[in-house]
């Protein structure tokens, strides 16, 4: 039953889920879900550029995602348009430019569906090395940046006043996101990367009593979703990327059921906004 390709998919998928868990927490704490989408969509432009200039695929996706996030920072400083409008423009522009460029390159045939939805069953041993090597690097950086990142998530001015550097933490965070998207593209695909970032983290919220526990739980829940999704896709012969996301969604729905723990937290999740002003 366990073919080699399936074992490789499992190892790569679990490695990726563990890596994105803590990042996903920051994405939802900072309300940056749409930002993750934008970076992921811009990955297609990275694909097109890599074909055009014969660059390493992952490197060119990373460069484009990083460039898009820096562009966003610049446009935000000008302050003419709101962040979500800017993200909408960047996201779909990058995606469309990528598609148009691909159409011009008549000499290449690319599997667009493969990039949009990923192909985890095609990961090689080199891909596994990359996922785990990159993953360890990303997690080490997150641990190192944890305090400034968390403090500036709560309040950047407070963090800055008390000697941390929120701007720098934010920049590093964006670069880490770009790196993770470059690594994850092959596995879950451009359209589904953000779901792996957000859904396990949102599921973890209900059971977490501290930010650190939530980050660890998000990784664990993500790994569970990858495992469940892959076995499901094998059993029902469904596409692997979407199956993983469906499994993650299943776990999220389970977390909403009113069993165990206190209900205060649950109502907290349901409320659309909160906090003190």
């Amino acid at each position, binding site marked *: 039953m366990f073919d080699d390709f399936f074992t490789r998919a499992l190892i790569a998928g679990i490695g990726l889920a563990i890596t994105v868990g803590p990042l996903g927490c920051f994405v939802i*704490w900072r309300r940056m879900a749409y930002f993750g989408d934008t970076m992921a969509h811009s990955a297609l432009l990275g694909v097109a550029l890599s074909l055009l200039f014969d660059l390493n695929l992952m490197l060119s996706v990373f460069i484009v995602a990083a460039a898009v996030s820096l562009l966003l920072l610049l446009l935000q400083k000008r302050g003419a348009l709101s962040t979500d409008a800017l993200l909408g423009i960047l996201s779909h522009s990058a995606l469309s430019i990528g598609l148009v460029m691909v159409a011009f390159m008549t000499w290449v045939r690319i599997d667009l569906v493969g990039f949009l939805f990923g192909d985890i069953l095609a990961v090689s041993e080199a891909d596994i090395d990359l996922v785990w090597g990159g993953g360890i690097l990303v997690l080490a950086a997150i641990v190192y940046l944890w305090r400034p990142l968390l403090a500036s998530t709560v309040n950047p001015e*407070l963090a*800055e*006043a008390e000697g941390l550097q929120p701007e720098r933490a934010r920049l590093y965070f964006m670069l880490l996101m770009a790196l993770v998207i470059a690594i994850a593209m092959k596995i879950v695909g451009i359209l589904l990367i953000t779901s792996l970032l957000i859904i396990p983290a949102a599921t973890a919220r209900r059971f977490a009593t*501290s*930010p650190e526990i939530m980050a660890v739980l998000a990784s664990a829940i993500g790994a569970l979703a990858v495992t469940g999704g892959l076995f499901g896709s094998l059993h029902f012969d469904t596409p692997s990327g979407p199956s993983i996301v469906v499994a993650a969604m299943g776990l999220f729905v389970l977390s909403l059921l009113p069993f165990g723990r206190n209900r205060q*937290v649950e109502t*907290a*999740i349901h409320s659309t906004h909160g906090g003190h002003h």
Partner: protein
Amino acid sequence: MLNFHKSDQAPLVSLNNAGIRRNDRWLVRGVEFSISRGEIVTLIGPNGSGKSTTAKAAIGVLKPDEGWVEKLPGLKVGYVPQKLAIDWTLPLTVERLMTLTGPLKGREVEEALHSTGIAHLARAEVQHLSGGEFQRALLARAIARKPDLLVLDEPVQGVDFSGEIALYDLIKTIRNRTGCGILLISHDLHVVMAETDTVICLNGHVCCRGTPQMVSQSPEYLKLFGSRAAKSLAVYSHDHDHTHLPDGRVLHTDGSIT
């Protein structure tokens, strides 16, 4: 009391003709003051007069577009911002909030929570606190790290009247015990802590300054807020066993009011 601080010490922070400009408009301009160890400076002024902006310039969050700000090297700041919204998705207990910007010993956290009267809430999630409890938690967080300079932007907002007196008392105690400098922004134009050494009245610029008594009688203050306001510029004083309330009544330490 007015000369509590030793003026021969170098100030913790000083603003020299500082101005902050946004979108072709000066939010505040020509601000000059300094805070020394053990000194309490209170900023008052109407909405939009540049109080928070001035405080942010003092702690280096905003860079002045004109003039300059000098800070003692290695200055440790404790900051209570005016607005702080913590997203519901972030699980954060009061205890965890304490070590947000730096590590602390368990004993230091306990002390800070105890002195602000919220030791029983250590394990509560911050999103479940009332406005007053949340302000105490923020104050506890700022003092727990034993700062040289405490910057409090409307620290008693949302706190009821007796809680307000208790918090002002606590701020005074912190100053006396640790000798830190305090920059306080009052949410109420007419209320200033009695221990304040210098009141600075802002309205886009420094419109007047001095001891609380001096400011309440200065012509600029009268012009800005009217003579009724001046009559009611209340001073919280704490003379050992009783407190003078703004309306002239006296609050005794046992809680009775005469």
